[in-house]
């Protein structure tokens, strides 16, 4: 800055006081009639020039900056708005395109679902068939086992009863001849097992 702080104060005071001086001169000049009007005009011109200079010098840069900032802000906002608009347009285009493909996709999904359903139904049918076969097989095996166990149980009971009866019979009717016969049989068995 060419003029310092003090200079600026002086200049401001001068500008404020000069019109007063001018008005005084005009009042005095009015009496002189005619010769004071040129000086008054010059004073006004000079005064205006100083006013303009001050205005340009002090208020100009902030004003310019304000307007430049405002312009750049508006430009950015505009650019953003344009980008958003373009994006919205793209989205609208894509949505329109998808809308146009929606029917085909719907058909495809329906076909896929039908195929999947048929596959699952076949699988479930197959599993049900296998389960039914297994149940039949298990039932047959269980039935056979139960039958076998029952037969075994009956045989065991019969054998036990038979054994009991046989024991009673033997105890009651076993005599020395029987014992001798058994001993002979035992001796024959020993003779058979004896090495030759």
């Amino acid at each position: 800055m060419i003029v310092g702080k003090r200079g600026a104060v002086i200049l401001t005071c001068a500008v404020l006081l000069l019109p007063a001086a001018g008005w005084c001169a005009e009042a005095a000049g009015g009496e002189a009639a005619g010769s004071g009007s040129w000086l008054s005009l010059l004073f006004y011109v000079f005064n205006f020039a100083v006013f303009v200079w001050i205005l340009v010098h002090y208020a100009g840069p902030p004003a310019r900056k304000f307007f430049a900032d405002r312009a750049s802000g508006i430009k950015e906002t505009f650019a953003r708005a344009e980008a958003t608009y373009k994006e919205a347009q793209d989205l609208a285009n894509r949505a329109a395109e998808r809308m146009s493909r929606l029917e085909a996709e719907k058909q495809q999904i329906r076909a896929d679902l039908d195929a999947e359903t048929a596959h699952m139904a076949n699988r479930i049918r197959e599993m049900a068939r296998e389960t039914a076969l297994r149940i039949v097989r298990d039932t047959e095996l269980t039935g056979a086992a139960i039958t076998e166990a029952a037969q075994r149980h009956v045989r065991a009971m019969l054998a036990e009863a038979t054994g009991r009866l046989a024991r009673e019979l033997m105890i009651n009717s076993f005599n020395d001849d029987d014992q001798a016969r058994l001993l002979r049989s035992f001796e024959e068995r020993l003779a058979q097992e004896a090495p030759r």
Partner: protein
Amino acid sequence: MKGSRVAKRYARALLGLSEDRTQLETWGAELERLARIGDAPEIALRLASPEVSHEARVAAMAKIAERLDLSYPLRSLAVVVARHGRIANLTAISESYQDQLDVLLGRARATLTFAREPNAQDTAAVVRGLEAMVRKTVIATVKVDQALLGGVVAELEGKIYDGSLATRLSEAERRLVG
């Protein structure tokens, strides 16, 4: 205890003292008598008591052997057994001695269990059958067990020859069950 190494060693030592079969048999009988006395609860408890000194125990065994009128080798054995603290092994030594003597003399011991009291002919017939089978002289111990119903069961050298009616009946029952 019958097969313990200690009992086998003592029995082998006694057997090695003579080659006379009759004498060995006599010693076996004497050893059995000594073992029976040594195994009697009142004597066994007294001899095993910690209140009895070692010397007193040896002296007691010597006295028992003398009272039983045992031959000199058996008296010596009784003293040696007592001195080495093996009185409790006397029965095992006697059994081991009998086993080794049986092997030496080509004999086998069998237990015959009859369903009824057998006569001498029946016992002899069964013993002959067993002798023919093992090709040894069989010394039989006879028992009676009515649970066999009929027939006989012979136990010889760790094998059982079962000719009893009870077993036949059990087998028939098993066959019926299937």
